[in-house]
């Protein structure tokens, strides 16, 4: 009787009730990352990316994935600046399949994220939000899993939030000369890993720091910049 009571209150779990970790993956289109993560990003769920300052390459990490998976819509919630349509289209993202949501407060952002996930029309969500509480993260995680969507939560802290958040994966990104260095704090179905370097040089040759990966690249010095005409017209 006691056991039944405990089971009812979900204090005791039977081993067969617990579903094993979802081993399905979707490729990140970065071979080193795929190898490191045993196949790539989770198939569905919430992924926390602690990016530090914006602009270190956090979207470049995701763009190849987004460009490949366009059977359903994708949504961007509260990007820190304007999303440049030209850049997205350059990387093969279909803008007609992309929605942009701007909310005035964090509650609205969470509401729209949950609505979008529950509608089942989105395959990928990218949301910028300062912080999530454990219940909020849990709701998003469950919605994403139920609707087979992958949601990336980006924030500008250098370190991921406390370990209590129920997310599928928690990573922090740091810039290096050739791309990004990923520190993996939690990844469902994987043991703790060493940090991993993602080389973006092949996809974005002109954004890699010269001297490190492309010896043929001639560094441009500040001083030999062509002068602008001093007067217009």
């Amino acid at each position, binding site marked *: 009787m006691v056991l039944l009571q405990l089971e009812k209150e979900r204090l005791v779990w039977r081993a067969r009730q617990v579903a094993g970790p979802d081993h399905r993956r979707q490729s990140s289109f970065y071979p080193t990352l795929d190898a490191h993560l045993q196949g790539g990003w989770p198939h569905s769920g919430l992924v926390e990316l602690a990016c530090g300052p914006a602009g270190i390459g956090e979207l470049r990490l995701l763009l190849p994935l987004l460009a490949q998976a366009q059977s359903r819509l994708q949504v961007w919630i509260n*990007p820190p600046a304007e999303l440049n349509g*030209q*850049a997205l289209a350059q990387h093969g993202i279909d803008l007609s399949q992309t929605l942009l949501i701007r909310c005035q407060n964090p509650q609205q952002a969470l509401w729209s994220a949950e*609505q*979008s996930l529950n509608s089942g029309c989105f395959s990928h969500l990218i949301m910028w939000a300062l912080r999530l509480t454990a219940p909020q993260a849990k709701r998003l995680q469950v919605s994403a899993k139920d609707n087979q969507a992958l949601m990336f939560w980006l924030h500008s802290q250098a370190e991921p939030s406390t370990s209590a958040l129920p997310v599928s994966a928690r990573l922090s990104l740091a810039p290096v000369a050739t791309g990004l260095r990923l520190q993996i704090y939690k990844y469902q179905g994987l043991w703790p890993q060493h940090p991993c370097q993602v080389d973006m040089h092949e996809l974005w040759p002109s*954004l890699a720091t010269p001297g490190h990966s492309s010896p043929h690249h001639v560094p*441009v010095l500040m001083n030999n910049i062509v002068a602008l005409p001093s007067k217009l017209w």
Partner: protein
Amino acid sequence: MQWLYLYFPSLQLDSLLHQQAYNQACVLVHKNEVVQTNPEARQLGIKIGTGLAQAALLCAQLKVIAYESKQEQRLLAQLAQRLYQTSATLYLDPPQGLLLQTSDMLRLYKGLAPYWQQLQQPLMERGLHYHYASAHSPLAAQVLARAGNDRLLTNQDEATRLLSQLPIHRAGLDHKLSLQLERLGLNTLGQAQALPRSALGQRLGQTLVTFLQQLETSSAPSWPAYQPPERFRQRLELLYEIEHSTALRFPLKRLLSDLEAFLAPRQLRAAGLSLGLEYQEHASERLHIGCSDGEYRAESWLALSMLRLEQLKLQAPIIAVSLKTKGQMPWAPLSAQLFEPPGGKLTAGQLISRLQSKLGDHAVQQVYLQDDHRPERSFYQGLPQSHYQSQQATRALRPSLLFTLPQALNHKPDHRWCILSGPERIQSGWWDNVSICRDYFIARNPIGQVCWLFRTPREEWFLHGYFS
């Protein structure tokens, strides 16, 4: 031909009281005279024609509402719209009557009783009091119904017999004429019918003769039959003033279920609704609620409207609500993809409408490309459209995050910055007075952000975006 006449002696009052259970005496008053009463008022002895002062004496807590013939006509048209689902040919007889041609419908419903059952249902739903009668001629049905006959007669002889027994003062003739007839000693309609028509005409005027003739003619009335409107438009007057927007849920639900009953048989969906809120002593307000995919179900519209109304602050108490459709289109299949794996609960259009109702129309956007060399004008954000042809993107490398307004750099980039590419000169826009002349550089700053910088001819440096 067979005719059925429905008479609603207290149409406006019933519609008002139906909104809420109200069990106290309530009357409609027109020119200081009671014109409609509810059963509670009748119990207290208030009759139609009682003066307002006397009625107030009979009941101190009497609720008095002004009678509006326009509103009653509107209600009658709404009712006709609903009954049109059941009966094909019907005529409005304002202010309180509806005439239905039954003979054509009997074959469909296999008899008068099932047909009548179908007709009664919407009347009960609306809580209306009514009298009815069926007869061989429109006027006979009208006279019998107004006299409170409440019987369905298929037999012409019986109708004629009932008519002939009807007292003159209840035949619906005007007061002066019936008084004249009674003075002649004619107390029932039958007695008047028995007299020679020409003599009656000479003595009492042509109106009576026409009246008697029309009692027997079974042809359709001279005015045109009811035609349902093309677009939905309805107004609901409230019994109580509403002060909180969430309390609008109930009247709105009623309007929306009428909307569904309007759209569903026509296989139409509405692209948008215009909800009118009429304030007391304030200009009325119109809200637009959109649903890009179109929708007809009351439930979905209610959810969308409530999202919108929750954010609304009412300026004054609301006395009436009106609803009309904006754009109607035929039904379309909900999903084009049969083999799409996860069954989406909403379509993208429905989701967009839901988000827009809550966050405002401009919170949900799509990015469109534009042919312009100026980076800030090479794309724009607009309301989502389901179909559009995307343009070719530029070949030059562009940052994924762009600032609307370039941010001025306090210091010129120094040796700690690493220039990755540049300069790329963009000089454009002389034709519309927003000309720019900039040298763009891609540079990595000391903390590792890949920035898009530009320099103006005046050697000022700006940060315009990140290669995020």
